[in-house]
Protein backbone atom coordinates (compact mmCIF):
# COMPACT_ATOMS: atom_id res chain seq x y z
CA UNK A 1 0.00 0.00 0.00
CA UNK A 2 1.18 3.47 -0.72
CA UNK A 3 1.38 5.96 2.02
CA UNK A 4 -1.39 8.50 2.12
CA UNK A 5 0.38 11.75 1.44
CA UNK A 6 -2.68 13.87 0.85
CA UNK A 7 -4.39 15.43 3.83
CA UNK A 8 -7.10 13.14 5.15
CA UNK A 9 -10.62 14.46 4.80
CA UNK A 10 -12.07 16.11 7.82
CA UNK A 11 -13.85 13.77 10.16
CA UNK A 12 -12.56 10.59 8.55
CA UNK A 13 -9.88 8.53 10.18
CA UNK A 14 -6.55 8.95 8.43
CA UNK A 15 -5.88 5.26 8.87
CA UNK A 16 -9.10 4.08 7.16
CA UNK A 17 -8.17 1.72 4.31
CA UNK A 18 -8.81 3.10 0.85
CA UNK A 19 -11.99 1.93 -0.85
CA UNK A 20 -10.57 3.08 -4.14
CA UNK A 21 -6.93 3.52 -4.92
CA UNK A 22 -5.02 4.49 -8.02
CA UNK A 23 -1.29 4.06 -7.97
CA UNK A 24 1.23 5.08 -10.61
CA UNK A 25 -1.43 5.17 -13.32
CA UNK A 26 -0.27 6.13 -16.81
CA UNK A 27 -2.47 6.35 -19.87
CA UNK A 28 -1.78 7.39 -23.46
CA UNK A 29 -4.03 8.03 -26.42
CA UNK A 30 -1.45 7.51 -29.15
CA UNK A 31 1.17 10.19 -28.54
CA UNK A 32 -1.00 12.06 -26.06
CA UNK A 33 -0.09 11.34 -22.43
CA UNK A 34 -3.55 11.81 -20.87
CA UNK A 35 -2.94 10.46 -17.37
CA UNK A 36 0.44 11.00 -15.72
CA UNK A 37 1.61 9.42 -12.44
CA UNK A 38 -1.87 9.35 -10.96
CA UNK A 39 -1.90 8.69 -7.20
CA UNK A 40 -5.28 8.85 -5.52
CA UNK A 41 -6.91 7.16 -2.57
CA UNK A 42 -10.54 7.53 -1.69
CA UNK A 43 -11.80 6.24 1.64
CA UNK A 44 -15.26 4.85 2.29
CA UNK A 45 -17.93 7.52 2.54
CA UNK A 46 -15.73 10.20 1.05
CA UNK A 47 -16.86 12.58 -1.69
CA UNK A 48 -14.09 13.64 -4.04
CA UNK A 49 -14.76 16.30 -6.64
CA UNK A 50 -12.45 16.41 -9.65
CA UNK A 51 -11.92 19.82 -11.22
CA UNK A 52 -9.73 20.95 -14.06
CA UNK A 53 -9.71 22.60 -17.45
CA UNK A 54 -11.16 20.90 -20.53
CA UNK A 55 -8.92 18.13 -21.80
CA UNK A 56 -7.07 17.73 -18.52
CA UNK A 57 -8.05 14.05 -18.30
CA UNK A 58 -10.95 14.13 -15.82
CA UNK A 59 -13.26 11.93 -17.88
CA UNK A 60 -10.45 9.56 -18.71
CA UNK A 61 -9.61 9.26 -15.01
CA UNK A 62 -13.23 8.37 -14.25
CA UNK A 63 -13.43 5.89 -17.08
CA UNK A 64 -10.26 4.05 -16.11
CA UNK A 65 -11.74 3.33 -12.69
CA UNK A 66 -14.22 0.87 -14.16
CA UNK A 67 -12.02 0.07 -17.10
CA UNK A 68 -14.07 1.68 -19.82
CA UNK A 69 -10.56 2.82 -20.69
CA UNK A 70 -7.54 0.59 -20.23
CA UNK A 71 -4.41 1.90 -18.54
CA UNK A 72 -0.84 1.49 -19.74
CA UNK A 73 0.82 1.32 -16.34
CA UNK A 74 0.00 1.36 -12.67
CA UNK A 75 -2.70 -0.29 -10.64
CA UNK A 76 -6.25 0.42 -9.63
CA UNK A 77 -7.82 -1.26 -6.62
CA UNK A 78 -11.39 -1.31 -5.53
CA UNK A 79 -11.84 -2.31 -1.90
CA UNK A 80 -8.36 -3.79 -2.00
CA UNK A 81 -9.00 -5.90 -5.10
CA UNK A 82 -6.93 -5.27 -8.18
CA UNK A 83 -9.12 -4.39 -11.17
CA UNK A 84 -8.93 -7.44 -13.48
CA UNK A 85 -8.21 -6.86 -17.15
CA UNK A 86 -11.16 -8.86 -18.49
CA UNK A 87 -13.61 -11.64 -17.89
CA UNK A 88 -16.20 -12.31 -15.17
CA UNK A 89 -13.95 -10.83 -12.45
CA UNK A 90 -13.94 -7.51 -14.27
CA UNK A 91 -17.71 -7.62 -14.76
CA UNK A 92 -18.20 -8.28 -11.05
CA UNK A 93 -15.94 -5.42 -9.97
CA UNK A 94 -17.64 -3.12 -12.47
CA UNK A 95 -20.98 -3.97 -10.96
CA UNK A 96 -19.62 -2.61 -7.67
CA UNK A 97 -18.73 0.72 -9.26
CA UNK A 98 -21.68 2.82 -10.40
CA UNK A 99 -21.15 5.21 -13.28
CA UNK A 100 -23.28 8.18 -14.24
CA UNK A 101 -22.59 9.69 -17.65
CA UNK A 102 -22.99 13.19 -18.97
CA UNK A 103 -25.35 11.89 -21.66
CA UNK A 104 -27.41 9.69 -19.26
CA UNK A 105 -27.14 6.63 -21.52
CA UNK A 106 -30.42 5.13 -20.35
CA UNK A 107 -31.34 2.03 -22.34
CA UNK A 108 -33.50 3.65 -24.99
CA UNK A 109 -35.70 0.63 -25.68
CA UNK A 110 -36.52 -0.18 -22.06
CA UNK A 111 -39.00 1.43 -19.71
CA UNK A 112 -37.71 3.45 -16.79
CA UNK A 113 -38.43 0.58 -14.39
CA UNK A 114 -36.75 -1.96 -16.69
CA UNK A 115 -33.70 0.30 -16.90
CA UNK A 116 -33.40 0.10 -13.15
CA UNK A 117 -34.12 -3.63 -12.81
CA UNK A 118 -32.38 -5.23 -15.78
CA UNK A 119 -28.88 -5.34 -14.30
CA UNK A 120 -29.92 -6.59 -10.82
CA UNK A 121 -32.04 -9.32 -12.46
CA UNK A 122 -29.56 -10.41 -15.12
CA UNK A 123 -26.20 -9.70 -13.50
CA UNK A 124 -26.91 -10.28 -9.81
CA UNK A 125 -29.75 -12.80 -10.35
CA UNK A 126 -32.04 -10.92 -7.98
CA UNK A 127 -35.61 -12.31 -8.26
CA UNK A 128 -37.74 -10.07 -10.47
CA UNK A 129 -40.30 -9.21 -7.80
CA UNK A 130 -37.59 -8.09 -5.40
CA UNK A 131 -35.75 -6.16 -8.11
CA UNK A 132 -38.95 -4.34 -9.05
CA UNK A 133 -39.78 -3.51 -5.46
CA UNK A 134 -36.27 -2.14 -4.87
CA UNK A 135 -36.33 -0.41 -8.25
CA UNK A 136 -39.54 1.41 -7.41
CA UNK A 137 -38.10 2.44 -4.06
CA UNK A 138 -35.07 3.88 -5.80
CA UNK A 139 -37.22 5.72 -8.35
CA UNK A 140 -39.20 7.10 -5.41
CA UNK A 141 -35.95 8.19 -3.75
CA UNK A 142 -34.83 10.13 -6.83
CA UNK A 143 -38.35 11.53 -7.36
CA UNK A 144 -39.41 9.85 -10.59
CA UNK A 145 -41.61 7.03 -9.28
CA UNK A 146 -44.55 8.26 -11.36
CA UNK A 147 -42.54 7.82 -14.58
CA UNK A 148 -41.76 4.12 -14.06
CA UNK A 149 -43.60 2.85 -17.14
CA UNK A 150 -42.43 5.51 -19.59
CA UNK A 151 -39.61 5.23 -22.06
CA UNK A 152 -36.51 7.36 -21.37
CA UNK A 153 -37.18 9.58 -24.39
CA UNK A 154 -40.45 10.69 -22.81
CA UNK A 155 -38.64 12.15 -19.79
CA UNK A 156 -36.89 15.48 -19.33
CA UNK A 157 -33.10 15.50 -19.13
CA UNK A 158 -33.16 16.02 -15.38
CA UNK A 159 -35.54 13.11 -14.91
CA UNK A 160 -33.43 10.90 -17.16
CA UNK A 161 -30.30 11.66 -15.19
CA UNK A 162 -32.07 10.87 -11.92
CA UNK A 163 -33.20 7.54 -13.40
CA UNK A 164 -29.59 6.90 -14.45
CA UNK A 165 -28.49 7.48 -10.87
CA UNK A 166 -31.19 5.08 -9.63
CA UNK A 167 -30.09 2.50 -12.22
CA UNK A 168 -26.54 2.60 -10.87
CA UNK A 169 -27.70 2.50 -7.25
CA UNK A 170 -29.80 -0.58 -8.01
CA UNK A 171 -26.57 -2.57 -8.20
CA UNK A 172 -25.73 -1.44 -4.64
CA UNK A 173 -22.30 -0.17 -5.69
CA UNK A 174 -19.50 0.53 -3.25
CA UNK A 175 -18.53 3.69 -5.07
CA UNK A 176 -20.27 5.96 -7.58
CA UNK A 177 -18.52 7.82 -10.38
CA UNK A 178 -20.12 10.87 -11.95
CA UNK A 179 -18.71 12.36 -15.15
CA UNK A 180 -20.20 15.82 -15.55
CA UNK A 181 -23.71 14.61 -14.66
CA UNK A 182 -25.29 18.04 -15.13
CA UNK A 183 -23.39 19.36 -18.13
CA UNK A 184 -25.98 18.22 -20.68
CA UNK A 185 -28.89 19.66 -18.72
CA UNK A 186 -30.88 22.84 -19.13
CA UNK A 187 -30.08 25.20 -16.24
CA UNK A 188 -33.46 24.76 -14.56
CA UNK A 189 -32.88 21.00 -14.27
CA UNK A 190 -29.41 21.11 -12.76
CA UNK A 191 -30.62 21.56 -9.22
CA UNK A 192 -32.89 18.52 -9.13
CA UNK A 193 -29.91 16.33 -10.04
CA UNK A 194 -27.54 18.12 -7.65
CA UNK A 195 -30.10 17.63 -4.86
CA UNK A 196 -30.19 13.88 -5.50
CA UNK A 197 -26.38 13.76 -5.49
CA UNK A 198 -26.18 15.77 -2.29
CA UNK A 199 -28.63 13.42 -0.57
CA UNK A 200 -26.61 10.48 -1.79
CA UNK A 201 -23.44 12.00 -0.36
CA UNK A 202 -25.19 12.57 2.98
CA UNK A 203 -26.30 8.94 3.02
CA UNK A 204 -22.64 7.97 3.13
CA UNK A 205 -22.03 6.92 -0.48
CA UNK A 206 -18.43 7.08 -1.65
CA UNK A 207 -18.38 9.35 -4.68
CA UNK A 208 -15.96 10.60 -7.30
CA UNK A 209 -17.56 13.51 -9.11
CA UNK A 210 -16.29 15.38 -12.15
CA UNK A 211 -18.31 18.57 -12.31
CA UNK A 212 -18.33 22.26 -13.08
CA UNK A 213 -20.85 22.90 -10.30
CA UNK A 214 -18.65 24.81 -7.89
CA UNK A 215 -21.49 25.15 -5.39
CA UNK A 216 -21.72 21.38 -5.11
CA UNK A 217 -17.95 21.11 -4.78
CA UNK A 218 -17.82 23.72 -1.99
CA UNK A 219 -20.74 22.34 -0.03
CA UNK A 220 -20.42 18.60 -0.48
CA UNK A 221 -16.86 17.62 -1.35
CA UNK A 222 -14.56 16.28 1.32
CA UNK A 223 -11.65 16.89 -1.01
CA UNK A 224 -11.13 18.62 -4.32
CA UNK A 225 -8.76 17.03 -6.81
CA UNK A 226 -7.43 19.54 -9.31
CA UNK A 227 -6.11 18.16 -12.58
CA UNK A 228 -4.21 19.81 -15.37
CA UNK A 229 -2.61 18.25 -18.46
CA UNK A 230 -3.12 14.71 -17.18
CA UNK A 231 -1.64 15.31 -13.74
CA UNK A 232 -3.21 15.67 -10.34
CA UNK A 233 -1.81 19.08 -9.45
CA UNK A 234 -3.28 19.41 -5.99
CA UNK A 235 -5.66 17.78 -3.56
CA UNK A 236 -7.23 20.01 -0.92
CA UNK A 237 -10.32 20.35 1.22
CA UNK A 238 -12.73 22.64 -0.67
CA UNK A 239 -12.42 25.70 1.63
CA UNK A 240 -8.65 25.76 1.13
CA UNK A 241 -8.87 25.01 -2.55
CA UNK A 242 -11.35 27.76 -3.31
CA UNK A 243 -9.87 30.40 -1.02
CA UNK A 244 -6.16 29.65 -1.18
CA UNK A 245 -5.19 27.31 -4.02
CA UNK A 246 -1.54 26.37 -3.77
CA UNK A 247 -0.62 25.90 -7.41
CA UNK A 248 -0.47 28.66 -9.95
CA UNK A 249 -2.48 26.57 -12.39
CA UNK A 250 -5.31 26.16 -9.91
CA UNK A 251 -5.26 29.90 -9.20
CA UNK A 252 -5.42 30.55 -12.90
CA UNK A 253 -8.27 28.04 -13.36
CA UNK A 254 -10.27 29.50 -10.49
CA UNK A 255 -9.80 33.08 -11.65
CA UNK A 256 -11.16 32.08 -15.04
CA UNK A 257 -14.27 30.28 -13.79
CA UNK A 258 -15.07 32.64 -10.93
CA UNK A 259 -14.48 35.88 -12.83
CA UNK A 260 -17.08 35.89 -15.58
Amino acid at each position, binding site marked *: MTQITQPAPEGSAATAPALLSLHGVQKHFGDLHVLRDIELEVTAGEVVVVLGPSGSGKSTLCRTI*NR*LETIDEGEIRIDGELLPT*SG*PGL*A*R*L*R*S*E*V*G*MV*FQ*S*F*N*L*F*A*HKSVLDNVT*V*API*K*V*KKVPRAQAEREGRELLERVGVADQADK*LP*AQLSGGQQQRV*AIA*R*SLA*MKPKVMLFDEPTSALDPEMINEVITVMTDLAKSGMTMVVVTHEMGFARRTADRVVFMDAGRIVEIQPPEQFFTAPRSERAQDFLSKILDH
Partner: protein
Amino acid sequence: MDHLFEQRSAIWDAFLTTLSLAGISGLLALVLGTVLAGMRVSPFLPLRIIATGYTEFLRNTPLTIVFFFYVFVTPSMGFSFSYKVAAVIALTCYTAAFVAEAVRSGINSVAPGQAEAARSLGMSFGQNLGLVVLPQAFRTAIPPLISVFIALVKNTSVAGAFSVLELFALSKRLTNAYSADVITILIGIALCYLVICIPLGRVAAALERKAVFGR
Protein backbone atom coordinates in the same frame (compact mmCIF):
# COMPACT_ATOMS: atom_id res chain seq x y z
CA MET B 1 -55.25 -18.62 -68.84
CA ASP B 2 -56.87 -22.05 -69.06
CA HIS B 3 -53.53 -23.72 -68.61
CA LEU B 4 -52.75 -21.69 -65.53
CA PHE B 5 -56.07 -22.81 -64.10
CA GLU B 6 -55.52 -26.43 -65.08
CA GLN B 7 -52.14 -26.38 -63.41
CA ARG B 8 -53.30 -24.64 -60.24
CA SER B 9 -52.42 -27.49 -57.94
CA ALA B 10 -48.91 -27.79 -59.44
CA ILE B 11 -48.54 -24.03 -59.10
CA TRP B 12 -49.78 -24.18 -55.53
CA ASP B 13 -47.24 -26.91 -54.70
CA ALA B 14 -44.43 -24.96 -56.32
CA PHE B 15 -45.56 -21.83 -54.51
CA LEU B 16 -45.40 -23.68 -51.19
CA THR B 17 -41.96 -25.01 -52.06
CA THR B 18 -40.70 -21.51 -52.81
CA LEU B 19 -42.33 -20.21 -49.65
CA SER B 20 -40.87 -22.93 -47.46
CA LEU B 21 -37.40 -22.58 -49.02
CA ALA B 22 -37.50 -18.86 -48.33
CA GLY B 23 -39.12 -19.20 -44.90
CA ILE B 24 -36.82 -21.86 -43.52
CA SER B 25 -33.64 -20.40 -45.03
CA GLY B 26 -34.70 -16.91 -43.93
CA LEU B 27 -35.18 -17.96 -40.32
CA LEU B 28 -31.93 -19.92 -40.21
CA ALA B 29 -30.04 -17.10 -41.95
CA LEU B 30 -31.42 -14.62 -39.42
CA VAL B 31 -30.02 -16.70 -36.58
CA LEU B 32 -26.68 -17.44 -38.26
CA GLY B 33 -26.30 -13.88 -39.52
CA THR B 34 -27.01 -12.43 -36.07
CA VAL B 35 -24.44 -14.75 -34.52
CA LEU B 36 -21.92 -13.67 -37.17
CA ALA B 37 -22.66 -10.00 -36.53
CA GLY B 38 -22.18 -10.59 -32.80
CA MET B 39 -18.88 -12.32 -33.49
CA ARG B 40 -17.73 -9.36 -35.56
CA VAL B 41 -18.10 -6.97 -32.63
CA SER B 42 -16.85 -9.41 -29.98
CA PRO B 43 -13.71 -8.67 -27.96
CA PHE B 44 -12.15 -11.96 -29.17
CA LEU B 45 -9.99 -11.45 -32.24
CA PRO B 46 -10.30 -15.03 -33.60
CA LEU B 47 -14.10 -14.75 -33.64
CA ARG B 48 -13.88 -11.41 -35.42
CA ILE B 49 -11.54 -12.86 -38.03
CA ILE B 50 -13.72 -15.92 -38.68
CA ALA B 51 -16.90 -13.86 -38.97
CA THR B 52 -15.32 -11.23 -41.20
CA GLY B 53 -13.77 -13.87 -43.43
CA TYR B 54 -17.04 -15.76 -43.73
CA THR B 55 -19.09 -12.67 -44.49
CA GLU B 56 -16.70 -11.27 -47.06
CA PHE B 57 -16.26 -14.64 -48.76
CA LEU B 58 -19.96 -15.50 -49.06
CA ARG B 59 -21.07 -12.01 -49.95
CA ASN B 60 -18.73 -11.96 -52.90
CA THR B 61 -19.43 -15.42 -54.24
CA PRO B 62 -22.20 -16.06 -56.80
CA LEU B 63 -25.08 -17.95 -55.24
CA THR B 64 -24.92 -20.56 -57.98
CA ILE B 65 -21.45 -21.56 -56.85
CA VAL B 66 -22.65 -21.93 -53.27
CA PHE B 67 -25.42 -24.20 -54.55
CA PHE B 68 -22.95 -26.13 -56.62
CA PHE B 69 -20.85 -26.70 -53.54
CA TYR B 70 -23.66 -28.16 -51.46
CA VAL B 71 -25.34 -30.10 -54.24
CA PHE B 72 -22.28 -31.64 -55.91
CA VAL B 73 -19.17 -31.15 -53.79
CA THR B 74 -20.32 -32.04 -50.28
CA PRO B 75 -21.72 -35.44 -51.37
CA SER B 76 -18.26 -36.33 -52.65
CA MET B 77 -16.95 -35.39 -49.20
CA GLY B 78 -19.26 -37.92 -47.64
CA PHE B 79 -22.20 -35.68 -46.69
CA SER B 80 -25.22 -36.08 -48.76
CA PHE B 81 -28.40 -34.13 -48.58
CA SER B 82 -31.57 -34.23 -50.56
CA TYR B 83 -31.71 -31.47 -53.18
CA LYS B 84 -34.13 -29.51 -51.09
CA VAL B 85 -32.03 -29.69 -47.93
CA ALA B 86 -28.95 -28.75 -49.94
CA ALA B 87 -30.89 -25.78 -51.31
CA VAL B 88 -31.88 -24.66 -47.81
CA ILE B 89 -28.28 -24.93 -46.61
CA ALA B 90 -26.94 -23.02 -49.61
CA LEU B 91 -29.55 -20.27 -49.30
CA THR B 92 -28.98 -20.03 -45.53
CA CYS B 93 -25.20 -19.78 -45.78
CA TYR B 94 -25.40 -17.21 -48.56
CA THR B 95 -28.14 -15.07 -47.03
CA ALA B 96 -26.56 -15.15 -43.55
CA ALA B 97 -23.66 -13.09 -44.87
CA PHE B 98 -26.04 -10.33 -45.94
CA VAL B 99 -28.03 -10.58 -42.71
CA ALA B 100 -24.75 -10.21 -40.81
CA GLU B 101 -23.93 -7.02 -42.69
CA ALA B 102 -27.40 -5.56 -42.09
CA VAL B 103 -27.29 -6.40 -38.38
CA ARG B 104 -23.75 -5.12 -38.06
CA SER B 105 -24.72 -1.76 -39.55
CA GLY B 106 -27.61 -1.74 -37.07
CA ILE B 107 -25.18 -2.39 -34.22
CA ASN B 108 -22.96 0.45 -35.41
CA SER B 109 -25.93 2.80 -35.35
CA VAL B 110 -26.55 2.19 -31.62
CA ALA B 111 -25.01 4.99 -29.56
CA PRO B 112 -21.74 3.76 -27.97
CA GLY B 113 -22.95 5.06 -24.60
CA GLN B 114 -25.56 2.29 -24.51
CA ALA B 115 -22.95 -0.46 -24.49
CA GLU B 116 -20.76 1.52 -22.07
CA ALA B 117 -23.63 1.86 -19.62
CA ALA B 118 -24.27 -1.88 -19.90
CA ARG B 119 -20.62 -2.65 -19.28
CA SER B 120 -20.42 -0.31 -16.32
CA LEU B 121 -23.34 -2.19 -14.75
CA GLY B 122 -21.32 -5.39 -14.93
CA MET B 123 -23.04 -7.01 -17.91
CA SER B 124 -21.06 -9.62 -19.82
CA PHE B 125 -20.47 -9.24 -23.54
CA GLY B 126 -23.35 -11.61 -24.27
CA GLN B 127 -25.76 -9.78 -21.95
CA ASN B 128 -24.70 -6.45 -23.36
CA LEU B 129 -25.35 -7.66 -26.90
CA GLY B 130 -28.54 -9.57 -26.19
CA LEU B 131 -30.23 -7.21 -23.75
CA VAL B 132 -29.06 -3.79 -24.85
CA VAL B 133 -27.39 -3.56 -28.23
CA LEU B 134 -29.20 -6.06 -30.49
CA PRO B 135 -32.77 -5.05 -29.56
CA GLN B 136 -31.88 -1.52 -30.63
CA ALA B 137 -29.78 -2.62 -33.59
CA PHE B 138 -32.67 -4.61 -35.07
CA ARG B 139 -34.82 -1.51 -35.24
CA THR B 140 -32.44 0.18 -37.64
CA ALA B 141 -31.64 -3.11 -39.32
CA ILE B 142 -35.26 -3.85 -40.30
CA PRO B 143 -35.34 -2.04 -43.68
CA PRO B 144 -32.06 -3.55 -44.94
CA LEU B 145 -33.08 -6.95 -43.53
CA ILE B 146 -36.35 -6.88 -45.42
CA SER B 147 -34.41 -6.14 -48.62
CA VAL B 148 -32.23 -9.13 -47.83
CA PHE B 149 -35.31 -11.33 -47.39
CA ILE B 150 -36.91 -10.08 -50.59
CA ALA B 151 -33.67 -10.94 -52.39
CA LEU B 152 -33.81 -14.35 -50.71
CA VAL B 153 -37.31 -15.03 -52.03
CA LYS B 154 -36.10 -14.30 -55.54
CA ASN B 155 -32.89 -16.26 -54.99
CA THR B 156 -34.89 -19.40 -54.25
CA SER B 157 -35.30 -19.60 -58.03
CA VAL B 158 -31.69 -20.79 -58.24
CA ALA B 159 -32.86 -23.98 -56.50
CA GLY B 160 -34.98 -24.63 -59.60
CA ALA B 161 -31.81 -25.22 -61.51
CA PHE B 162 -30.82 -27.86 -58.96
CA SER B 163 -33.78 -30.18 -59.29
CA VAL B 164 -36.05 -28.54 -56.72
CA LEU B 165 -39.49 -28.06 -58.22
CA GLU B 166 -40.24 -24.55 -57.01
CA LEU B 167 -41.93 -21.72 -58.90
CA PHE B 168 -39.12 -20.99 -61.29
CA ALA B 169 -38.57 -24.63 -62.25
CA LEU B 170 -42.31 -25.01 -62.73
CA SER B 171 -42.47 -21.95 -64.95
CA LYS B 172 -39.81 -23.49 -67.20
CA ARG B 173 -41.79 -26.71 -67.36
CA LEU B 174 -45.06 -24.96 -68.10
CA THR B 175 -43.64 -22.65 -70.75
CA ASN B 176 -42.11 -25.68 -72.47
CA ALA B 177 -45.39 -27.55 -72.34
CA TYR B 178 -47.62 -24.66 -73.40
CA SER B 179 -45.41 -22.51 -75.56
CA ALA B 180 -48.37 -20.50 -76.84
CA ASP B 181 -49.14 -19.24 -73.34
CA VAL B 182 -45.66 -18.13 -72.32
CA ILE B 183 -46.73 -14.63 -71.36
CA THR B 184 -49.67 -15.59 -69.16
CA ILE B 185 -47.66 -18.32 -67.49
CA LEU B 186 -44.75 -15.99 -66.73
CA ILE B 187 -47.09 -13.30 -65.44
CA GLY B 188 -48.89 -15.88 -63.30
CA ILE B 189 -45.62 -17.10 -61.81
CA ALA B 190 -44.36 -13.55 -61.28
CA LEU B 191 -47.58 -12.79 -59.39
CA CYS B 192 -46.81 -15.66 -57.05
CA TYR B 193 -43.49 -14.00 -56.14
CA LEU B 194 -45.25 -10.67 -55.65
CA VAL B 195 -47.70 -12.35 -53.27
CA ILE B 196 -44.74 -13.17 -51.04
CA CYS B 197 -42.63 -10.05 -51.49
CA ILE B 198 -45.22 -7.28 -51.27
CA PRO B 199 -46.44 -8.27 -47.79
CA LEU B 200 -42.78 -8.39 -46.70
CA GLY B 201 -42.41 -4.76 -47.74
CA ARG B 202 -45.62 -3.92 -45.86
CA VAL B 203 -44.35 -5.63 -42.73
CA ALA B 204 -41.16 -3.60 -43.04
CA ALA B 205 -43.07 -0.34 -43.23
CA ALA B 206 -45.28 -1.26 -40.25
CA LEU B 207 -42.33 -2.34 -38.10
CA GLU B 208 -40.45 0.79 -38.99
CA ARG B 209 -43.34 2.97 -37.85
CA LYS B 210 -43.48 1.04 -34.59
CA ALA B 211 -39.73 1.41 -34.12
CA VAL B 212 -40.00 5.17 -34.49
CA PHE B 213 -42.45 5.29 -31.60
CA GLY B 214 -40.31 2.96 -29.54
CA ARG B 215 -37.33 5.26 -29.60
